[in-house]
């Protein structure tokens, strides 16, 4: 398997889905079965390769970049095709390929309207390339490219297959279809952030050394972090943080998220929640903090405060929602708040918490969006006030929804708990350079946030699952979970429980890498 370790394997994981997309393109439009098979086949092979990656990975040296390679790419600006995996990116890669497979499986019999399996599966595959690429890129420009590639398929998914209900756009006052508003908002928001992020990348490059010795290599830049100081570092961190914060999203850059998640088709929401949001948090861990550690400490209080505001704010916003999907969407803001709180502590515990929180949020919220999608597919409404008694009408779906809600509110033994709890734990003893009092206050507020989180999820469950079903559903064909749904959801349920019971599934890969990262960034 020498070829696999020399960087080819990783590149294969990144680009195979793209090949798959082209292959699907080559299939005639009428032959839907074949399109599905091809798409699933490529996704499965990619997933299989990522499992091979995970097996071959040397967990004893998870802080080292493995399976990496560096080839000349754009010599003129000093950017290379540098990829590699370490313990931090490995779980994210597996998560991405895993969720994508499930997304295609789920889609098998649930193509959103207007029906176009060909294009839809192509977009999913392109998205996969973008996602995995972002996680393996070790060159800032390469990272930027993949980071942006992700936007395109999602833009189309939301725009073409999104929610067609008419909404009145706040402030502007125009009435338009939800999908149109959401897609452009999503795109412009992210683009705005990433434009400044790119400026930050370039600024780092020019500060990274004398002419001729400059680099976009993240690892190399992290090693030269002493060069980035003063107001330069301040502004660069701000620029990078803006780009990442929009993606995460951190309050107050989050307003694209509820719209985009709500408007997106089921699979779009799943991928958006499960993987795309992680690009931002991952970037904080991978780029901002190792390269600008001192500045990260200066910014940490602000990030922490915003994260905690996000937790509380999202909870209240969720309490006000009447639309089930929008509620789940808003809950992401809160969960990512916990992730960002973990990052803001600038400790190894916090980073581990953040990563496991990311993975957990991926599987849990992914599952919840799947269910929300399937439910609105059957009920033709997402208004919780019109639902009720779902547990009676569809017991299995109700049970899975219940499980995912429990996981989402951070029930120990399920995946969501570790990220939440360990973030709070990390906030008790943040990095020595940070204000202990502030972070402990944040810890307390964050802990209170868990109560609110439980509140909105339980009330959602009450409205949706419990009670007697309305008579209006008597004549509606409400079949319980079908086989494709089962095949897509059971793996998620299993991973939720598995990560909850045995968190080493994630931390086993991340811990050494995180400890090393913290040591390199902050010393000692």
């Amino acid at each position, binding site marked *: 398997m020498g070829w696999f370790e020399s960087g080819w394997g990783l590149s294969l994981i990144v680009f195979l889905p793209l090949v798959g997309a082209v292959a699907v393109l080559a299939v005639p439009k009428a032959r839907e079965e074949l399109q599905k098979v091809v798409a699933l086949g490529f996704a499965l092979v990619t997933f299989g390769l990522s499992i091979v990656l995970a097996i071959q990975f040397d967990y004893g040296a998870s802080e080292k970049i493995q399976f990496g390679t560096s080839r000349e790419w754009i010599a003129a600006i000093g950017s290379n095709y540098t990829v590699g995996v370490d313990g931090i990116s490995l779980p994210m890669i597996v998560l991405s390929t895993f969720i994508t497979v499930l997304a295609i499986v789920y889609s098998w019999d649930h193509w959103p309207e207007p029906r176009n399996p060909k294009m839809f599966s192509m977009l999913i595959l392109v998205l996969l390339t973008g996602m995995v690429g972002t996680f393996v890129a070790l060159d800032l420009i390469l990272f930027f490219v993949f980071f942006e590639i992700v936007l395109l398929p999602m833009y189309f998914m939301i725009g073409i297959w999104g929610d067609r209900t008419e909404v009145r756009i706040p402030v502007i006052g125009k009435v338009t279809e939800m999908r149109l508003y959401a897609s452009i908002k999503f795109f412009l928001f992210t683009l705005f952030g990433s434009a400044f992020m790119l400026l930050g990348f370039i600024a780092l490059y020019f500060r990274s050394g004398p002419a001729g010795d400059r680099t976009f290599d993240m690892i190399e830049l992290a090693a030269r972090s002493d060069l980035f100081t003063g107001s330069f570092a301040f502004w660069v961190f701000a620029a990078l943080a803006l780009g990442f914060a929009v993606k995460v999203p951190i309050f107050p850059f989050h307003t694209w998220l509820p719209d985009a998640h709500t408007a997106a088709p089921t699979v779009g929401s799943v991928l958006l929640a499960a993987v795309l949001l992680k690009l931002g948090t991952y970037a904080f861990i991978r780029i901002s903090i190792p390269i600008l550690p001192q500045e990260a400490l200066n910014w940490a209080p602000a990030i922490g405060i915003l994260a905690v505001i996000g937790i509380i704010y999202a909870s209240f916003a969720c309490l006000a929602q009447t639309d089930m999907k929008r509620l789940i969407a808003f809950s992401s803001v809160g969960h990512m708040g916990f992730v960002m709180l973990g990052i803001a502590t600038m400790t*190894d515990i916090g980073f581990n*918490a953040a990563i496991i929180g990311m993975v957990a949020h991926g599987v849990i919220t992914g599952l919840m969006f799947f269910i929300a999608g399937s439910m609105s597919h059957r009920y033709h409404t997402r208004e919780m006030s019109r639902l009720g008694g779902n547990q009676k009408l569809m017991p299995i779906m109700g049970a899975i929804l219940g499980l995912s809600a429990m996981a989402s509110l951070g029930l120990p033994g399920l995946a969501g708990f570790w990220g939440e709890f360990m973030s*709070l734990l990390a906030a*008790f003893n943040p990095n020595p350079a940070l204000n202990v009092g502030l972070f402990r206050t944040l*810890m307390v507020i964050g*802990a209170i946030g868990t109560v609110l989180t439980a509140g909105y999820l339980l009330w959602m469950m009450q409205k949706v699952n419990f009670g007697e079903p309305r008579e209006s559903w008597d004549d509606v064909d409400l079949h319980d979970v079908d086989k494709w749904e089962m095949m897509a959801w059971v793996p998620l349920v299993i991973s939720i429980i598995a990560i909850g019971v045995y*968190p080493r599934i994630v931390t*086993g890969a991340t*811990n050494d890498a995180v400890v090393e990262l913290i040591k390199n960034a902050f010393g000692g």
Partner: protein
Amino acid sequence: MLTFLATNANQLILATEELGEINDGGLLASLAWLIPVVPMVAAFAIVFFGRRLPHKGWELAMGAMGFVGLYGILLAFATMNGEITYEGAISMGEFGPIVLEWGWMVDGLSSMMYFVVGVVGSLVFIYAKSYMAGDIRFTWFFASFSLFAGGMLVLVAAPNLIQLIVGWELVGVASYLLIGHYWEDHDNSSAAIKAFLVNKVADVGLFLGVIIIGTTAGTFRFSEILAQVAAGENDLLKKFAFLGGLALFIAAMGKSAQFPLHVWLPDAMAGPTPVSALMHAATMVTAGVYLLGRTFPLYFVEGYAVDVRPIIMIVGALTLFLTGLIALVQTDLKKVLAYSTLSQLGYMVAAMGAGAYTAALFHLFTHAFFKGLLFLAAGSVIHSVHSNEMTDMGGLRKYMPTTYKTFVIGSLALAGIFPLAGFWSKDEILVAFGKASGGAANFALYLGIAGAFITALYMSRAVYLTFFGEFKGHGTPHESPKMITVPLVVLAGFSLVAGLINMPGFSSWFTELTAVRFTVMGDYHPKAINFGMAAAGLSAALLGILIGYVLWSKDAETQAARDKFRIPLLYPLLERKYYIDDLYMDGIVRPLRGPVARAVDWFNGHVIDLFVNGAGALAKFVGKYVYRFDQSGLDSAIIASAAATGAGGSVLRLLQSGRVQQYAVMIFAGTVVLVAGFIIF
């Protein structure tokens, strides 16, 4: 050893080596991981395969529970032969310096809990088979029930704080499922949510307490934390012990339903009766007391969280007194028992605060039997009259003799009548209050004696209203089947004799059992019976029964007529449960769910999006006007400049010129401006 413990009230025993040989428990302890695992596995197995089994999953639940009961008995006997201390741990993941561990602990405290959960649980499970027969979600019920017991056992087995959280919350979620078992009814699911949320509020305390204690101690293992406490060298831990201890106590207040977080427990009656029995007797509500017991030295060793103790005593005393009073006005039989549980929990918690570790656990132990008994008996009654309301009962003595007898035994035990189980444990608690110093202890003592009186009063009320007089319900009640009465009889037997295992001056087996090796004991067991205190407690109870007899022994048409003691102000206050629920709902929950949440949502759409969409709108707006200027705004610009310069027709002439000339104007103007600018600067 006994004498040593008994004679040194309030004195720390630091020299653990004096406690004799430590037994690692051998195979029995090393396999004890099965205790939490078996019910948990059973719970999942029931979900997936239960429906296909002949008894629809009950046999799995019963088997698991029976296994735990047997294991608990074995461990109890093994512990009698010598103290066992065993800690198993499997590493489950690393977070930087923190290693997460799953483990199981076998020592006196946990063995006692295994025993209680296992034995009481088994009896309740037997009972439930018959009670729940025909329920639409029979299988699901036993899955949740197993999860409930399993969660409790995870909690009890936890050798570290983090696993404790896991068990703690599993118990919470299982209780949510069970309380909301009949979720078709909105009130039931609301009760379930209430239970979960109130516990979640308390869990904030648990989270913070665990974080504070664990982080400052640098370890989450009880054994290591308590060893540090004993050694007294960790100044950081000392500094934070008060906060951490207080936070953990808040957690205990939630699970053990202490005032003012007690509100969920009465509502939890929405679940089927076996759930109430198990929840009130063995699992869930005992978790808080267990937690205090497990971390007991933290509150007891000077320099740590000793200042929390008065708070614990006051909270416990208030709970035992205030909730006891509410029990007096309840008409729902189960609610009477529920408030009585609250009251008894108040005793246990206050006892912990008073430093009476053994007394508190002992009361927990005896209470498990008689409260389990009372609930099951109440369930038996309810099963037969199809109503919870005591106004629909009366005269059942004749119809349900076994139930009647066992219920009375339970009531007497609860009221603390010599020589039943409750007498011994309650007496020990009162003695502890008396021994402890400080205003809080006195407060607890007075309220404790008053509480004994109130307990007897409301229990006699319940007995009279239910079993005496004329039957007021519909149909003919009949005695319950064997599956129901047998557990009643067994529990009645325990209620009769359980107190004897820790009779002062006679036996100290329970004290020895629960004396945990690595905890630094500040505990005592009275060497001999304290006759003064016993007399005080007993006479208060007898007085209560007497007054109860006077008030309720005579039958009457209406409940109002029987409840003759309607004191103005106090009665409505009790009926409204001191308005605490109203305060929570109207003061906190509704505003948060309503106006506050809506305000945040509005803020999202109108303030943040004001900037976002406003930027978009601004761009469009600017675009519109720039475009207009670009294309035709020149006219006005020229008029303006013409007016300004006063130039006559020559400039105005331009107005009539064509568009292309306006472009030309712009070009020349731009050129001139730029040239002028550059020449000047």
